[in-house]
């Protein structure tokens, strides 16, 4: 394609990406390096239905004057990134110096909000992603074998978990796994343990969220693989059959290599999505046991009665973007090398 044609095709979307993706990210990056002005505090009398009290208040006029001079706030450089609520360099240094052993060291690290969230986020990502791919592939193989008249309804029902809005899906399941809900009560009966609660312990909460994540995302992998299965060359399959290949051997040596590029695609999308896990934590009220990077951003903006921490939220957003890039790098590099070899 001549460069002129290419550019005339690409410029509208390039412009849109500039405006709606690149610029907002730059603004978030800038925001993350600033913190609020020093507040001008004064002491006044505060009276209401419960009597009078002398309290501190912010002198909004004086603070507003500071803000007119420097609308972004005070420059803090990487200060927000390294503070206790994010990468916590000082606390890690202390832990390195004082920890009595590896268990104590990791205990101290996992007590810090960012690393606690990172631990769950990574566990979730690395368990959910492969299981979604395997499960999606198995469902696709199974659906591909059933008679034509059942295919439509089966595909529709298999897609339901993805059709349901994540927040609603997790809320419905949250009620079902309640100790008085249908799943929770059944589990109590099966394990003969009336105190069993999926919401009460960290391990079981993580397990619940992971199972939910697989349930929610498997249909996506299934649809992609099912579409791919329709393009598997029948000639190759037939010649494999003539050569006496079993069903497993045909899947292993013909179908899987054929679907590999799709598997790479699903992996990329799933790594990105799972690293940003958020809705199920809200839906399952799981923040006591499991937090994610996205949840930290949400909490900075909603956690404390209008005291929004824009700098913190921006810093965590940037760290999330960096995290996604690191996660995707090996897959992208591999694809790039393979393409270069092919070319």
């Amino acid at each position: 394609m001549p460069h002129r044609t290419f550019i005339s095709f690409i410029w509208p979307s390039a412009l849109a990406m500039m405006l709606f993706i690149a610029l907002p990210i730059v603004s978030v990056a800038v925001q993350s390096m600033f913190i609020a002005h020093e507040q001008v505090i004064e002491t006044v009398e505060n009276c209401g239905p419960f009597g009078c009290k002398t309290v501190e208040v912010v002198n909004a006029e004086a603070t507003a004057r500071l803000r007119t001079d420097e609308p972004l706030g005070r420059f803090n450089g990487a200060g927000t990134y390294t503070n206790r609520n994010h990468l916590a360099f000082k606390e890690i240094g202390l832990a390195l110096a004082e920890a009595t052993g590896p268990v104590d060291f990791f205990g101290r690290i996992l007590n810090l909000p960012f690393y606690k969230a990172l631990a769950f986020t990574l566990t979730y990502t690395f368990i959910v992603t492969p299981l979604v791919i395997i499960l999606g592939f198995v469902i696709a193989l199974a659906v591909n074998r059933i008679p034509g008249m059942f295919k439509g309804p089966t595909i529709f029902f298999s897609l339901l978990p993805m059709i349901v809005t994540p927040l609603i899906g997790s809320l419905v399941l949250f009620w079902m796994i309640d100790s008085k809900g249908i799943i929770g009560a059944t589990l109590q009966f099966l394990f003969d343990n009336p105190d069993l609660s999926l919401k009460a312990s960290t391990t079981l909460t993580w397990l619940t969220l992971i199972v939910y994540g697989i349930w929610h995302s498997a249909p996506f992998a299934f649809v992609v693989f099912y579409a791919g299965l329709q393009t598997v060359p029948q000639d190759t399959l037939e010649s494999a059959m003539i050569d006496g290949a079993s069903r497993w051997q045909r899947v292993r040596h013909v179908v899987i290599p054929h679907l590999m590029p799709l598997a790479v695609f699903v992996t990329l999308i799933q790594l990105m999505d799972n690293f940003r896990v958020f809705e199920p934590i809200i839906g399952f009220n799981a923040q006591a046991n499991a937090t994610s990077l996205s949840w930290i951003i949400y909490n900075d903006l909603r956690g404390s009665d209008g005291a929004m921490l824009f700098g913190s939220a921006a810093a965590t957003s940037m760290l999330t973007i960096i995290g996604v890039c690191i996660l995707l790098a090996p897959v992208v590099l591999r694809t790039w090398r393979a393409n270069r070899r092919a070319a």
Partner: protein
Amino acid sequence: MNMVSKLSVSAAFVLAGASTAYAGCGIASGSAKLLANDFPATQAIAAAATACDGGGASVTANLNKDHKDLIVAAFTANPPEFTASHVTNSTLVAVMNDGLAQPLDGLIAKHGAGIQDMQKITIDGKVMAVAFMANAQHLFYRKDILEAAGAGVPTTYEGVLAAARKIRDKGLMEYPIAGTYKAGWNLGEEFVNMYLGHGGEFFKPGSAQPAINNAKGVATLNMMKALTEYMNPDYLTHDSNAVQAEWEAGNVAMTNLWGSRAGAVTDGEGSTAEIESNTMFAAAPTVSGGSIPATTLWWDGFAIAKNASAADAEASFLAVMNGISPAMATSNADAANWLIAGAKPRPVGKGVVESAAGGASPYPMLPYMGAMHGAIGAELADFLQGKESADQALADIEAAYVAAATEKGFL
């Protein structure tokens, strides 16, 4: 806090039928856009206020459970997204931190003849909000269960624990206590209640430096943990809605729940007559030999955005005045502990009244309290689950608070 962001249907729409009847309310021009939390009392107020819609005026109301997360953004816009908002002790501080509310003295002199002095939230000599109701978490108890267990009505948290033990030992209930211990704002509020009951101070006097890592803080945590031993194991997921549901299902015998829920658990809906008729209210218990109920007193009121034009501010004030009129309070007497002149005290409001009479502290109106509350709510769960010591939990809260307060420019 209910996490589902429920953009509730505009009350103006719900009340479309009633809205034309009393058009005017003396509002000549301007538009009033009200934002409020969503519970029976605010529903009654919104209905009365939006009745002013029509003629030269436009009055709309948006009731939203997440209103407290919207106020600052809504008032920051110019012109503001909402001209008047429901505020409380804590949210008025967030609004005033950014200087987003306007003094109401002029409007009160002109149109506020019926407002009682105690309704005026006066800060540095200027009225910044008009309160309409009082609220507090206080003791809800089941008379029949306590009698069957041979326990009296507890007035201290030590008594609550003793009663819970008796109820469990008699096999009446496995988890007799419920609490709004959902990690986040609710859990933070429970700590604030209990810590103030111990006579604690959150900050070093006159500064924003935290001061909760002390013996009172440890005692507070230990009492909270002792209470959780008698709670459903899912307690860290229970907000007010969940506790109300547990109560109405008859699963619990004692809880420290909001006064604004007292009407809802005795309204003849969602529960059995046996449970409702045995549901009683009392002041929040005291703790650890303290003399004041371990709870915080809250007022709910309205503030008007600084960025609202003079006409809109006047229209909003008149709409609010109509919303919190004595007539509205009289016809909705059971909905809240109204501070409005002429409103009769409601029987189910005795828990709030007794807590206030017992000397309970108002929720601290300090600019940095929001950051402290957020830090407490986020860092406490580990201790309650037995993953860390009380000292460590308090140190974590202080560290998380210092990072947040530094970012907000308080330290």
